[in-house]
């Protein structure tokens, strides 16, 4: 089989870099203009309604946090469980995690009606609210991520004029196991609680189940590993070098595959227990409504389960397939797509098919609908452009990857 080569020739790298950065800057500017429009006109410019108050941005927020979960996974694996062979990818994971969390915060800042009051959860406590707990965990964990990033920043040429900073950075780096432990606890809490956001709502049968928090954390681990590894392989391919050793790449691929398998196993039982072996009138009614008014069957079974779960699990767990970079990149990309699709499906399903409370027969056929407006879409694209820009600059100016083959082993 032909070698999978998408590397950019050395002489045109400069040009390609500027085209790439230029495109992203244009997209970012368009997104920023969209964001300004949201702040000026309010959330009326979205397709959201009182029946479907959460949509594209909440999906983006949940997906960014899920695909940023590589940070806590690899930090825990390397610094807490001391499995040192994964060390070469830990920095990239932390960096991708930081980008994921900052993207989520951008999406959230736009999504809440009063961004000027974003600090309220810190002052006004409602400990009964999973969202309160999530807010605290996400803020604290973002601080952990920044602290984990600082050493990378202090090593750069720019900061070399203050040599003390580098020493501070090294001191911070020595505390990595502590950050890994705190990060693990915070992440386990909020990644699961994001599922509990829906799972605790007794009024919406399609959501109300204890499996949602566990499915969210498992899919986040799979998605986080996949995102980190995919970007690592991609950067390597474009620069025509093997960033991490092939053996390590295969090991991480298998790791992602097993995480996906565990997630699929839970999902299988979640489906079997709630829809196959039992009958819940509320959930059945909601599903019927979804199937008759939305492409839910396709987005769930075909995209989320088959394309985003089963196919990548097979590729990554098969030794021959995962050794083929083309297939393994495809599989990792599909996991990211599948996890994102899952967040969309979960968020929209409970809202588009609302519980039927009307005591008559006429009110029972009501289904809500939602379609993102162009304003929502350009803002989302803008946030993705921010994420890609931040990653590109990180790759170019920070040492997020091991610099030579030796360090990669």
């Amino acid at each position, binding site marked *: 089989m032909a070698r999978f080569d998408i590397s950019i020739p050395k002489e045109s790298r400069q040009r390609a870099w500027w085209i790439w950065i230029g495109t992203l800057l244009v997209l970012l500017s368009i997104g920023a203009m969209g964001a300004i429009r949201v702040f000026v006109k309010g*959330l009326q410019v979205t397709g959201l309604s009182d029946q479907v108050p*959460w949509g594209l941005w909440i999906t983006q927020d949940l997906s960014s946090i899920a695909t940023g979960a590589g940070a806590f996974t690899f930090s825990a694996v390397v610094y807490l469980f001391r499995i040192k062979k994964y060390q070469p990818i830990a920095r990239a994971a932390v960096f991708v995690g930081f980008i994921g969390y900052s993207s989520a915060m951008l999406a959230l800042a736009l999504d809440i*009606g009063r961004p000027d009051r974003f600090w309220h959860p810190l002052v*006004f406590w409602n400990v009964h*609210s999973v969202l309160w707990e999530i807010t605290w965990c996400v803020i604290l964990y973002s601080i952990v991520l920044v602290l984990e990033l600082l050493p990378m920043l202090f090593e750069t040429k720019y900061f070399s004029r203050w040599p003390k900073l580098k020493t501070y950075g090294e001191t911070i780096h020595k505390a990595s196991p502590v950050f890994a432990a705190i990060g693990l606890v915070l992440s386990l809490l909020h990644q699961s609680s994001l599922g509990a956001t829906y799972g605790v709502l007794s*009024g919406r049968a399609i959501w109300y189940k204890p499996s949602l928090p566990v499915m969210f954390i498992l899919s986040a681990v799979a998605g986080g590993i996949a995102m980190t590894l995919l970007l690592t392989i991609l950067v390597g391919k474009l620069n025509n070098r093997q960033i991490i050793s092939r053996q390590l790449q295969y090991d991480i691929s298998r790791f992602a595959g097993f995480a996906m398998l565990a997630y699929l196993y839970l999902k299988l039982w979640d489906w079997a227990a709630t829809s196959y072996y039992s009958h819940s009138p509320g959930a059945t009614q909601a599903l019927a409504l979804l199937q008759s008014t939305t492409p839910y069957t396709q987005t769930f079974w075909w995209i989320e389960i088959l394309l985003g779960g089963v196919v990548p699990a097979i590729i990554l767990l098969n030794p021959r397939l995962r050794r083929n970079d083309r297939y393994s990149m495809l599989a990792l990309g599909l996991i990211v797509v599948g996890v994102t699709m899952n967040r969309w499906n979960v968020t929209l399903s409970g809202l588009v098919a609302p519980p039927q409370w009307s005591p008559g027969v006429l009110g029972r056929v009501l289904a809500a609908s939602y379609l993102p407006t162009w304003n929502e879409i350009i803002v989302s694209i803008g946030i993705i452009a921010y994420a890609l820009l931040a990653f590109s600059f990180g790759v170019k100016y920070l040492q997020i990857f091991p610099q030579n083959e030796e360090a990669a082993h």
Partner: protein
Amino acid sequence: MTSNTQSEEKKNRKGKKPLVSRKEFLQIAGSTGAATIITQLISSGPLSPEAIKGIGERTHPFAEGESKHTWCMIIDLSTCIGCQYCVWACQATNDVPEDEMRWNIGYPERTESGTDFFMTRPCLHCQEAPCVKVCPVGATWIRKDGIVTMDYNRCIGCRYCQVACPYDVRRFNWKPSSAENPYHPTWGTPEIDRRARGVVEKCTFCSHRIDRGLEQGLTPGVDREATPACVNICPVNARIFGDHNDPDSPLSIFVRENETFRLREDFGTEPKVHYVRPEKEEI
């Protein structure tokens, strides 16, 4: 602990491999200690459910102490003629100019046996309100008298309460509301401030009337000045409001003597709005 480590050191010096090394011992002792402390904190200590209960609610007026009252409403669907006066009076009194923002909605319905009736629905003021539980800042809370109400100055507009409410009760201010109120003055006069863009709003059982009325020694549900606008305006008395704790209130007497139901009791939300079946007369 000191004696333990000393004895371990002795063993080490003798050259025998200890059962547990000092490092391992400290790790085990440390993690056991930490686990004990954490367990204590969350079971009976300062982080226990009892200790942190209502931490966000304590700062609210009316949330402290006990109230003698529990305000409830009855909506008699067999009496209702579907005039929508209650819908409009609510919009005038609570200054809700846009129809899509209605706190108290009304629409034609039909029973399974084919009887047409008119369904109206204010906030049900659930005793186990999902919206109160989920609010990350405690901007929605339940008063001791059972009314679920909001602090519009605290709300951050995350809309989790809308996601949590199974009865579609809550309304978000998607845009600034500057429209003339078309229901004023025909159906009443605004008695509360209009809400700002970016916050959620909801029916309050006209709590401003109840609070002011009680101060003046009036009885909500009996004296008009202390009774929700939707109850007052009803031309056929299909809505009854009153104190469920007072056995002699018209509401309590009605609940005792008539069969009522609440919307989707299986949600476990314990609503405080009771309905009378539309087919009552026919049975």
